[in-house]
C-alpha cells in the first residue's frame, strides 16, 4: 500500500512537469534565448551505437535532420547531397549530460574573483540562482565539450542547507548565460547534508551539528508551507472576489527565498541534494515525505550502495563518482562499485563529475565503475552503463523528452567516438549539439576558443 502511494506521488510529479514546463519557461524571468546553431543534415554511417537506453546497435546509420534525430537503422537511404560521415569502426552515443557541474561558477583560472558558486552568507539561500553566477567564458565549457558533454546542470556549492537554484545549460559557446539555458528545463534546488553546512556555519551562528542541519531544513520547510497557504488563500479569495467588491484581496509580499521552496512543493523545481551517508539520505527521504516533496537526486551519494533498495523504492537517483573518497569523514566508506551496485538494485544511477577535469572524461568514470562492478560479479553491459551518462541524468533533470537517448525526434545531441568509448584510447571525434558540429577533433576551426584564452599561450591548441 505504502509503495503504491509513493509511486502514485512520483508519477504525479512527473506529469506535472510535462504539463507545466512550457508555461514555466514563458513566465519565468531570465528566459532562455538559446537558438540551435545552423546545421546541415548528415548521415552517420555504419556505426556501433549505444542508444543510452541500454541497447547496442551494430552497423547502424543515424540520420540527423534539422537538428533532430530523424532515423536510426541499417542501410538508411537519404536524399542526394546529404553529407555522409563514415562511422565504421566508430561509436555513436547520445551526448553526455553532467548533472553536477560548477563550470562558470567556479571558472578557470581559479582566481579568487572567480569564486561565484557558494553564497556563504547564510545557511538558507534558496533565493539565489547559479545562473546569476555563471561566467560563460569559462574555458572549462570548451574542454567539457571536447569530452562529449552536451548539457550540464550548473549547481551552487554545498556550503548551505539550501544553496540556491541550479540551472541546466546546453554546452554551447555564448555571450550570455541565457543563450546557453536549456529551453524548458526545470530548475533544480541545491540542498546539502552533513559536514559542509555545519563546518561552514558552526562558528557563525549555526547549524553546528547534523541535528542543527535538520532543524534548519525543517524550520524553513514549515515557513514555505505557510507561505504557500498564504498565496493559496489569496488566489482563492481573488477567484471569489467580484470586480465591484469594495475590499479586494491584497497579494502577500513576495519572498524569493520561500517562492523557490513553494515551487519545489508544487513539483516545478527538482531537489538535488548533496548527501554522502546512507543514514542521512534515509532521513532526508523521510523529511521529504513530512513536507510533501520529492528528492529527485542525491549527489555524491558515497554510501548509496548501502541503501540502494531504499533509493529504488523511492525512485530517487544517485549521482556518483566512480572512485573518489576519503577526503572527509562522510566520504570514508566509498567503494569503487557504488555506481554498478546502485544500478544492480534497480535504482537510478548517474555518473557525475563535480570537477572541471573530471567532466572531460565522464565516459572513463563509467568504464571504471562498470569494470569494477562486473569484476565483483555483477553483469552489466556497456550499453546499459551508457544510461548512467545520458538518459538517467536527462530523466533526473526533466529533459529526457528532448535529449539523452538515441530516439527519433529527440535533439541531435550526439557524439561520434574514435573507437569504443570505454577504451582509454578513444576520444570524441565529433560533438553535435542540436545537429551542429561544435567540436571536431580533426578541424582546428571547430575548436571553440573562449574570450579568456584569446591571445594567451595555448590559444586554439589541441587540449
Amino acid at each position: 500500500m505504502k509503495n503504491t502511494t509513493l509511486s502514485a506521488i512520483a508519477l504525479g510529479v512527473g506529469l506535472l512537469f510535462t504539463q507545466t514546463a512550457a508555461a514555466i519557461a514563458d513566465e519565468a524571468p531570465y528566459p532562455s534565448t538559446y537558438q540551435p546553431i545552423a546545421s546541415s543534415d548528415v548521415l552517420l554511417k555504419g556505426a556501433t551505437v549505444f542508444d543510452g537506453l541500454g541497447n547496442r546497435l551494430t552497423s547502424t546509420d543515424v540520420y540527423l535532420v534539422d537538428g533532430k534525430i530523424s532515423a536510426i537503422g541499417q542501410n538508411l537511404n537519404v536524399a542526394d547531397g546529404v553529407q555522409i560521415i563514415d562511422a565504421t569502426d566508430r561509436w555513436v552515443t547520445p551526448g553526455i549530460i553532467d548533472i553536477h557541474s560548477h563550470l562558470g561558477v567556479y571558472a578557470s583560472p581559479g582566481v579568487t574573483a572567480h569564486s561565484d558558486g557558494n553564497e556563504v552568507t547564510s545557511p538558507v539561500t534558496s533565493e539565489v540562482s547559479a545562473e546569476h553566477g555563471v561566467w560563460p567564458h569559462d574555458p572549462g565549457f570548451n574542454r567539457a565539450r571536447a569530452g562529449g558533454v552536451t548539457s550540464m546542470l550548473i549547481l551552487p556549492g554545498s556550503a548551505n542547507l539550501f544553496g540556491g537554484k541550479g540551472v541546466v545549460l546546453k554546452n554551447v559557446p555564448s555571450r550570455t548565460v541565457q543563450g546557453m539555458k536549456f529551453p524548458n528545463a526545470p530548475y533544480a534546488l541545491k540542498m546539502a547534508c552533513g559536514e559542509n553546512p555545519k563546518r561552514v556555519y558552526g562558528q557563525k551562528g549555526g547549524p553546528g551539528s547534523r541535528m542543527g542541519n535538520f532543524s534548519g531544513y525543517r524550520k524553513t520547510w514549515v515557513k514555505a508551507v505557510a507561505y504557500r497557504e498564504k498565496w493559496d488563500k489569496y488566489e482563492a479569495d481573488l477567484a471569489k472576489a467580484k470586480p465591484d467588491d469594495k475590499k479586494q484581496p491584497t497579494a502577500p509580499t513576495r519572498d524569493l527565498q520561500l517562492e523557490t521552496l513553494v515551487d519545489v512543493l508544487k513539483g516545478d523545481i527538482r531537489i538535488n541534494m548533496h548527501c554522502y551517508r546512507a543514514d542521512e539520505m534515509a532521513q532526508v527521504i523521510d523529511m521529504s515525505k513530512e513536507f510533501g516533496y520529492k528528492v529527485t537526486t542525491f549527489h555524491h551519494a558515497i554510501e548509496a550502495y548501502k541503501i540502494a533498495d531504499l533509493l529504488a523504492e523511492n525512485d530517487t537517483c544517485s549521482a556518483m563518482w566512480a572512485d573518489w573518497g576519503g577526503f572527509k569523514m562522510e566520504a570514508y566508506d566509498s567503494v569503487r562499485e557504488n555506481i554498478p551496485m546502485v544500478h544492480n538494485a534497480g535504482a537510478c544511477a548517474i555518473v557525475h563529475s563535480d570537477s572541471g577535469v573530471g567532466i572531460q572524461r565522464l565516459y572513463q568514470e563509467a568504464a571504471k565503475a562498470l569494470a569494477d562492478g562486473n569484476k565483483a560479479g555483477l553483469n552489466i553491459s556497456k550499453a546499459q552503463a551508457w544510461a548512467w551518462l545520458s538518459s538517467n541524468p536527462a530523466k533526473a533533470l526533466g529533459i529526457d523528452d528532448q535529449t539523452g537517448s538515441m530516439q527519433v525526434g529527440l535533439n541531435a545531441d550526439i557524439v561520434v567516438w574514435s573507437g569504443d568509448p570505454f577504451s582509454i584510447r578513444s576520444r570524441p571525434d565529433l560533438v553535435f549539439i542540436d545537429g551542429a558540429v561544435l567540436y571536431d577533433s580533426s578541424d582546428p576551426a571547430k575548436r571553440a576558443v573562449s574570450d579568456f584564452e584569446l591571445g594567451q599561450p595555448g590559444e586554439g591548441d589541441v587540449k
Partner: protein
Amino acid sequence: MRKFITVCLAFLLLQSPAIAETFAITGAKIVTNNGAIIKNGTIVFDDKKIITVGETASVTIPDTATKIDASGKWVTPGLFLPFSQVGMVEVAAESSTNDTRSSKSPFSAALLAADSFNPKSENVGITKIEGITRMAILPAASRTIYGGQGALVNTSGEFRSITSNTAFIYVQMGETGARIAGGSRSASWLWLRQSLLEAKAWRKGREPAEPLLNSADAFALQNALKKNLPFLVRINRASGLLALIDFKSKFGDLNVVAVGAKEAWMVADELAEAGITLIIDPHDNLPSGFEALGATMYNAVRLHKAGVKFAIANLGDGSFNARLMPQHAGNTLATGLDWNTAFAAITEVPAQIFGEGDNLGQLVPGMTADIVVWDGDPLEVMSSADMVFIDGQKQNMTSRQTRLRDRYLTLGDGNPLPFAYR
C-alpha cells in the same frame, strides 16, 4: 585458553617473517621494460630477486616453485608513484588524521615524510591492490618553500616498509611558492638560492649571524646537496622552467626534477638540453591558474618528441586517488604517445628519478621482484590487477573498500542478520 591462542596467533602474524617461496608465473604477456613485450612469457622469482624471465618455452622452472598460470594475463613491473602522500593522511579534512603539512612547525626542509607514514593506513591498502608497489611520499610546503625530505616506501602494509627516509627534497615554487616566500617569485627564487648557499656553507658553531635556516633545515639541505639527492621542484609556468634550468646550472648541475610543468612543452628543447626530468599529470589541461595558460594533454607527447624524460602522476590527488596514475598515463595514448613510453612513466622513470633504476621498474634477473598480474592492458581503465607481489611476497588483495563492498553486495538476499554480522 581461547584467549591464549588468539594471543599466540596475533604474535605469529606480527612476527610472520617473509616466507621464502619461489614463484613461476607462466604463459603471460610480459612487459619487462627492457626490450620487446614477451607474448608468451614466464617469470621465476623469489623473495630476494627475479631469477629468470623469458619465453615460456625457454624458461626452466625449478621443481620447488609455486606455479601460477597466467595465460591471457599481462605481467608487468610493479607501478611506482613518483609523487604522493599515501599513508600520511587518512581523512584529508580531519586534521587529527592529516600529517601531510606542518604549518606550525619551526622546521621545514628537515621534516621527514617517513615520520608521518603509516603503513596500515587504508590508503596504502587501496593503492596496493591497484598494482602500485612503490611510492615516493613527501611533506607539503607550508611555512617555507621547502616541504621537507621525501621517503621511498613500498605498499606492502608491513611495519618495515620504508626503504629510504631521506630520498629527496621537496620544494614548492610557482604561484603557491611565491605566496609562501613573501608574496612574489622574486621572493621565492631569492629564498631558494640564498637558503642553498647558506646550507652549503653551514658549519656547526659558525652559523651566519642572521640565518634564514635553522640548523636542522640547513643540515638536511647540506646532506641532500652532498649526496646529490633530487630536488623535486613544483613549478608550472614556462618562464619558471627556464629559470629552473638556469638555477640548476648555477648550482653545480643540481639534481632537479620539475613537478607539474604544465607549460613544459613550450620550452621542451631547453629542458631536453638541460637534462631535466619531469613529473607531469596529463589530465592537467585547464588554465587552472595564470601559471598554466598553456596547459594541454599533449604536453607528454610533445616532451617525448623533444627528448625530455618524464614520469606521470595524479597531481590532483596525492593520497586517496594517487592510485589513478595508470589512467592518467593511459590518456596520453590518445594524444599519440607510444605505449612503452607511457608505461615507463609510471614504472621505470620514477625508479630512475629516485636512484632505484638498477633495482626497480624493470623485470630483469637480479632486480627486486615487484610484479603485478593484470587482467588486461594496465593502461586501460577497464583493466585491474589480479595479483601483486612486493619483494617477491604475494600480497593480500582485499582492502577496507572491498570489505565494505562485499558486505553490501548481497543487499536484498533476505538474510535477516544486520550487516554488522556479515
